[in-house]
């Protein structure tokens, strides 16, 4: 090892006997293991070998509060959870129970962070919430894979994700309908119009919509149309 910088004083963890190190790691909570795992390849490898809770992960990438929640798998009073908040999402309040995640080293962005957590904690993504007001998990996605449909998909567009899987992206309000709530003419028209506006180089019509404001039904429709455009979903095939 190269000699440590002169300002570095403290205990060298790796100079402790192996069994002692393990005893120390056994006292760590998820956050300490996580922070430790981001320090180097060696600490990441050690972190992977530490005995940990079985966890599930829920992602809220566009949420202002916490972006990742990790739960222990056991239910009831003993269930523990950790709410992670990434730096760059505003300053934490004094009363927040979020854990601040420092985006450095191996956790340079949200995707790297999720990959890192999956790797270190062997945790599976249970839900991904993209601010559509509703969570999607395997159970809810089942109707798309069999004939017993609850939701119907109308259009949207396909992308190839970084992991090579094909995903369909669309507006929750316009490209998806529930069997109890069939699509309205308004939805279809709005969907076609939005697609057209998106494809325009100068989207004057888009600005026109933003400016529209009225009270009553028309106003409500306009607000609804505006709001629904923000709600997108992704279905991974």
């Amino acid at each position: 090892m190269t000699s440590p910088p002169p300002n570095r004083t403290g205990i060298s963890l790796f100079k402790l006997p192996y069994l002692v190190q393990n005893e120390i790691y056994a006292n760590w909570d998820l956050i300490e293991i996580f922070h430790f795992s981001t320090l180097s390849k060696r600490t990441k490898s050690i972190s992977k070998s530490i005995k940990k809770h079985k966890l599930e992960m829920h992602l809220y990438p566009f949420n202002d509060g916490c972006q990742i929640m990790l739960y222990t798998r056991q239910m009831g009073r003993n269930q523990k959870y950790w709410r992670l908040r990434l730096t760059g999402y505003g300053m934490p309040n004094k009363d927040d129970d979020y854990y601040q995640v420092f985006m450095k080293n191996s956790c340079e962005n949200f995707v790297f962070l999720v990959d890192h957590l999956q790797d270190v904690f062997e945790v599976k993504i249970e839900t991904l919430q993209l601010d559509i007001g509703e969570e999607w998990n395997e159970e809810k996605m089942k109707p798309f894979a069999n004939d017993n449909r609850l939701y119907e998909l109308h259009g949207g567009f396909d992308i190839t994700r970084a992991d090579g899987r094909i995903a369909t992206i669309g507006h929750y309000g316009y490209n998806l309908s529930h069997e109890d709530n069939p699509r309205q003419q308004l939805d279809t028209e709005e969907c076609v119009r939005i697609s057209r506006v998106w494809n325009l180089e100068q989207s004057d019509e888009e600005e026109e919509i933003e400016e529209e404001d009225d009270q009553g039904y028309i106003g409500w429709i306009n607000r609804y149309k505006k709001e629904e455009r923000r709600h997108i979903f992704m279905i991974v095939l």
Partner: protein
Amino acid sequence: MSSTEQGTSSAAPAEPTTAPESAAAPEVPESFYYVHGKDKVVHKVSAGALQHSALIHGMISNLGYTEEQAKANPFPFENIDGDILQMVVDWCNQHKGKPTPPEDTNLPKQKEKLFDLVLAVNYLEIKELLTYCCKQVAMMVKGKSPEEIREIWMIPTDAEDEAAEKEAKKRAGKEAAGETAAAAGDAK
């Protein structure tokens, strides 16, 4: 180790730092043993207190010392600083024959001292005290940022690890070359 090697007269077995005597005298007289650290100061410790240390307990069981023999031959722990050994002896005396509490708040707060204590306790195989120490050491990084953890624990970066690996390989290569040369010299 001879008695003359035990340092100054104040550190000799005649005036050891004694364990607190039990108020209620036991029916069978308790046997005492003697240990010393790097500073050669001898500590008198009861067999009951020493039972916490699997290492010393094993040594006592195997040696079958009489009290006189034990006095003349304190167990030497040259790799343990005197003040650290004193802490260990105090802890053993304090917890002699008692169930160990779930927490121990009397451990040193100073990082270097705690580090030395962990090493000593691990060497002496005092399981309960090691558990407390490790817990205290683990808690040192509670609520700290990754960079603070790196500072506290002197965790090398990837670049430092790679440089260390290269250096170790180079050293191993040199040693191997030296051995080969020595073997060739012997053959001649």
